[in-house]
């Protein structure tokens, strides 16, 4: 994993999400704090106003002289001027009580108002109510609201610093989440980069707490597995093609060069040209076979599909190959199982060719006196085809390999054939939804094709599960579909 670049963090989804939640949470907290602040401050202010109104009500019945005496008595009891009272004459000049200068213009009577008083050199906030006595004097009741203001400031400061802390934590959390995501993405991106550069064995790293990302990574890894497998197959095929085509090309070139060099009589020329034509035909046949297999494997060949019965195709194949079997002294029998007729979708020419290749192989490898049997099968709802022989069979470890292009069992390397026949069978089987199995027939070899389609069932469902239990087809040794 590479080091995380700070500049990339703000672009990560994790960081952006964290930021979004931070914004939403911050807005919620701000609204809550504001509400609390307004409610608390309002409550404290109303409390003061109510106290002042009560004071006024109590003192309003007294006359100016009584009030003056009361204030002069009380003033020494309140040295800090917590609750100043004062009496003013009709011209608003101070008469008695706390030393207070009334603000100009005079506040309207019986309405609370804010003012300041100098106390020990500092302007302190006060709230007061001015009442006009019946005799024309003014009476002021006031209260020091410094503590309340102080409390309000504290409250606001606490809220602000709390908000800042939340913001910092949120940002830091976002950075951490973003950096973690960036780290994971970087690891995955680097692995992909290496795969693109040709290292197909590389896999994307699973992260410790990846969650969703891990699920994605597993799927991608499976995809890379499949790509690697296909690439290896392609590589194997390419190597084989190169090898199998080089031999006839070498012969072709050598033959042409020989006649060119010797400048022989016309008859020898004709022979050489005929040889060259034969070689070229062989090469073309190999190429065509490869193209056809590729085409069939690509699944592009469905235009020829129609509804057909396997039995007539099997009979036709037997009819076509019977003279060849007879010439070799091998008996070719068709032994269809009862009720093995039934319709399925398929390309008759491809099926003929595939079954034909199997029969051709079987005849080729069965010694004289042996038997090749062709059967249409039925197990429950599944239709199948079987070609069995009494030849040497195919060793177990070769049974998958023989389906590869150009693969030839070692001991048969000198037998005629291109090594493409079974590849074509496998491709046709896959195109038609057949499971191909190669088994030991003791003695000999048995190749079975079980059609995967069961009428009325989903094609993708596993036919093994759906077949009736007592009639389950034999477990295929090598399944392809």
């Amino acid at each position, binding site marked *: 994993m590479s080091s995380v670049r700070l500049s990339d963090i703000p672009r990560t989804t994790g960081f952006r999400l964290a930021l979004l939640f931070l914004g939403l949470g911050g807005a919620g907290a701000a609204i809550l704090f504001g509400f609390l602040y307004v409610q608390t401050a309002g409550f404290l202010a109303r409390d003061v106003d109510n106290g002042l109104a009560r004071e006024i009500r109590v003192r309003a019945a007294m006359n100016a002289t009584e009030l003056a005496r009361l204030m002069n008595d009380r003033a020494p009891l309140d040295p800090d001027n917590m609750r100043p009272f004062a009496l003013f004459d009709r011209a608003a000049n101070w008469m008695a009580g706390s030393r207070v200068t009334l603000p100009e213009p005079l506040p309207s009577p019986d309405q609370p108002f804010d003012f300041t008083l100098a106390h020990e050199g500092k302007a302190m906030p006060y709230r007061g109510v001015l009442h006009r006595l019946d005799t024309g004097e003014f009476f002021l009741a006031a209260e020091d609201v410094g503590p309340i203001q102080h409390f309000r400031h504290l409250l606001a400061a606490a809220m602000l610093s709390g908000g800042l802390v939340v913001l910092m934590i949120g940002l830091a959390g976002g950075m951490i989440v973003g950096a973690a995501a960036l780290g994971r993405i970087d690891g995955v991106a680097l692995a992909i980069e290496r795969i693109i550069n040709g290292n197909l064995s590389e896999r994307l790293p699973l992260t410790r707490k990846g969650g969703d990302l891990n699920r994605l990574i597993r799927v991608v890894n499976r995809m890379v597995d499949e790509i690697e497998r296909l690439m290896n197959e392609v590589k194997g095929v390419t190597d084989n093609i190169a090898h199998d085509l080089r031999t006839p090309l070498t012969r072709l070139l050598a033959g042409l060069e020989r006649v060119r060099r010797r400048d022989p009589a016309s008859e020898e020329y004709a022979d050489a040209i005929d040889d060259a034509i034969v070689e070229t035909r062989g090469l073309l046949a190999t190429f065509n076979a490869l193209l056809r297999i590729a085409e069939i494997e690509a699944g592009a060949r469905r235009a*020829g599909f129609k509804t057909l019965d396997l039995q007539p195709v099997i009979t036709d194949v037997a009819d076509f190959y019977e003279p060849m079997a007879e010439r070799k002294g091998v008996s070719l029998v068709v032994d269809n199982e009862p009720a093995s007729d039934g319709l399925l979708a398929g390309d008759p020419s491809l099926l003929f060719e595939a079954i034909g290749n199997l029969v051709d192989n079987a005849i080729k490898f069965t010694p004289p006196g042996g038997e090749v049997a062709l059967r249409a099968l039925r197990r429950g709802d599944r239709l199948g085809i079987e070609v069995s022989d009494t030849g040497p069979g195919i060793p177990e470890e070769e049974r998958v390999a023989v389906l590869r292009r150009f693969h030839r069992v070692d001991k048969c390397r000198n037998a005629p054939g291109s090594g493409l026949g079974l590849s074509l069978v496998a491709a046709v089987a896959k195109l038609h939804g057949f499971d191909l199995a190669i088994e030991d027939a003791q003695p000999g070899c048995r190749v079975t094709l079980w059609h995967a389609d069961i009428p009325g069932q989903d094609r993708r469902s596993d036919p093994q599960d759906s077949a009736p239990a007592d009639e389950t087809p034999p477990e295929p040794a090598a399944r392809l579909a």
Partner: protein
Amino acid sequence: MARVLVIEDDRRTAAEIAAALGDHGFDVECAYTGRDGLLRATAEKYDAIVLDRMLPGDLDGLGILATLRTIRTETPVLILSALSAVDERVRGLRAGGDDYLTKPFESVELTARLDVLIRRHSMPQQETTLRVGDLQVDLLTRELRRAGRMVELLPREYRLLEYLMRHAGRVVTRTMLFEEVWGYHYDPQTNVIDVHIGRLRRKLEEGGEPQMIHTVRGSGYVLRAAE
């Protein structure tokens, strides 16, 4: 002499085709663009057209074929194509093609197929007996006689022989026989058909009669009246 129009954009290929058809005894003309080909095909009378499936420009093989069939020109058309896909073959035949040959092909395959197309087109078949030299077959009873001797044939052998007799004196390739007699479309790439022909041959020559089915090297067979 049969006149054949070859519509093929690659001049060297066209020249080779023309040479092969000329050697076979056809009178050949070449068109190198779809437009020219269509003009000639509609303006003049040909016995057959060899049509390249892929032509440059806005008028490709299938376009020409569709136009010809729309204006009811019934000249038999053999489609040549580098596309081997069977889907392509089906499309070509659906568009009105009479036969389809994939490049690269052998000249014998081309000429033999053209022969069949031209003959099928010019001679409606309503005869009840076929006769080639001392070989005679009754198409209704399926009885075969060679120099008066009854020859028993299996159904498949009978169809092989009937096809050979209908094209007596002309080369018939293995692929054509396979397609016609077995009804499947692919190149079997085996000598199985040789074995079938060998059996048929033996039955025809059981009475010591001279050979009638001759092998054409590398490509097919021809049935000729014994000398």
